[in-house]
């Protein structure tokens, strides 16, 4: 049944599905995992690094990109589609600043990206963007924000979310472990993001990329060493927790 209604993007199936949009969501699952967490004073984006070929320059394979000084995003899905969306969003950020003399709010740029994606689900001869994005940042009012968009053009605010491969596992981990205590402290929020990724990342800390934005500070990308330090701390804490359990 599906095959008669999945060729053209502008055709609904009898039971109300837009199959091309749903297939685009499958493309998102082929990308590696990205997790976003909104803390009290910090927002964290963690991604599973794709393994690069030997002769490939690692710096050109990036899942986390800055859209402006105070907003950044991580994506999962088709690389080329992400590049197109990021370029449009960056131009929009600067255009907004020049026109209105204010930087964009996180919600504004998320809405822009979501509207762009929705246009491509309602246009003849085009296919939807095969990416989901996690957009984080601080607004002028100092409130941290985390939004998620998907290929259908919907966007929602989240306290913590994951996209890409194994997103379900990571989301379940976050649902269990996202507590007010866990996010009250900046360092704990960072650790929560890393712990969530370690649930699904196959080779540990060296395959994780991390970016944070603190209130009134620019985007900071963690170096491999800094991530290793955090991972070592997490493993120590795990061991201590296990020792305590076995003592009991």
């Amino acid at each position, binding site marked *: 049944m599906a095959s008669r209604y999945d060729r053209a993007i502008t055709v609904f199936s009898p039971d109300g599905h837009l199959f091309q949009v*749903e297939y685009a*969501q*499958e*493309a998102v*699952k*082929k*990308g*590696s995992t990205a997790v976003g967490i909104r803390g009290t004073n910090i927002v964290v984006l963690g991604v599973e690094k*794709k*393994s*690069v*070929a030997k002769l490939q320059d690692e710096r050109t*394979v990036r*899942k986390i990109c800055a859209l402006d000084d105070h907003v950044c995003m991580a*994506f*999962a*899905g*088709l*690389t*080329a589609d*992400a590049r197109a969306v990021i370029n449009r969003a960056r131009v929009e950020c600067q255009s907004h600043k020049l026109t209105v003399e204010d930087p964009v709010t996180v919600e504004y740029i998320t809405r822009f990206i979501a509207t762009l994606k929705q246009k491509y689900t309602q246009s003849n001869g085009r296919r939807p963007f095969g990416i989901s994005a996690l957009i984080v940042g601080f607004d002028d009012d100092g409130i941290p924000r985390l939004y998620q968009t998907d290929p259908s053009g919907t966007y929602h605010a989240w306290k913590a979310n994951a996209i890409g491969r*194994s997103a*379900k596992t990571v989301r379940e981990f976050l649902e269990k472990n996202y507590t007010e205590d866990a996010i009250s402290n900046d360092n704990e929020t960072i650790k929560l993001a890393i712990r969530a990724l370690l649930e699904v990342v*196959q*080779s540990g800390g060296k395959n994780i990329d991390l970016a944070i934005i603190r209130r009134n500070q620019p985007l900071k990308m963690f170096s491999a060493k800094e991530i290793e330090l955090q991972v070592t701390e997490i493993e120590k804490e795990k061991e201590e927790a296990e020792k305590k359990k076995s003592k009991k």
Partner: protein
Amino acid sequence: MNSGVWEEVGCTKLWNEWCRTADTVHLSPADAFCVFYQLKSDPSVLLCQCSCFVAEDQQYQWLEKVFGSRPRKTTKITVLTCRHVTEYKTSESVGSLPSPFLKALKTQHFRDPVCCSLLEQPNIAHGLPAAVLSYCQVWKIPAVLYLCYTDVMKLDLITVEAFKPVLSCSSLKSLAKNIPQSTDILKKLMTAEGTQSNIYT
């Protein structure tokens, strides 16, 4: 298979239009072989690794050659295969399925318990695994097919680990070793494959 535990005892060579070579005489193992291995510690255990496509019109002859004209009912057959999760027909949306997951299909004479739920209608098995199962049903041989529905096109660690419950079923229990390093060993085998495409990030 080159761990020293298995010994290669035979192979079937076949050519069809799916083979990557037009040379029908000098076929390399990668092209058109099904290789048979025998467990050194227990010669009654045979393993067939089929990495080529066996066309529908070749399947019966393949089965006859492998099982012989009158197959023994004392053999127990276990078939392992994979399919993409989008080919799994269900009323739920594909996105909500916990892939990879295992489904089983067995012949009438297979009495042992299976380690996962049975394949529901209207899903069917395809290709050589289906042919083997049909053959076993006709000749009253106990056989079970474990079908893993996965969301990746190339085999990866998570899909291979989905097969682990199969090692706990009675026919294979004696072969399975509970090694804690099994995940690490699997990781090494899997990363040897892993050239990445740059389409998805």
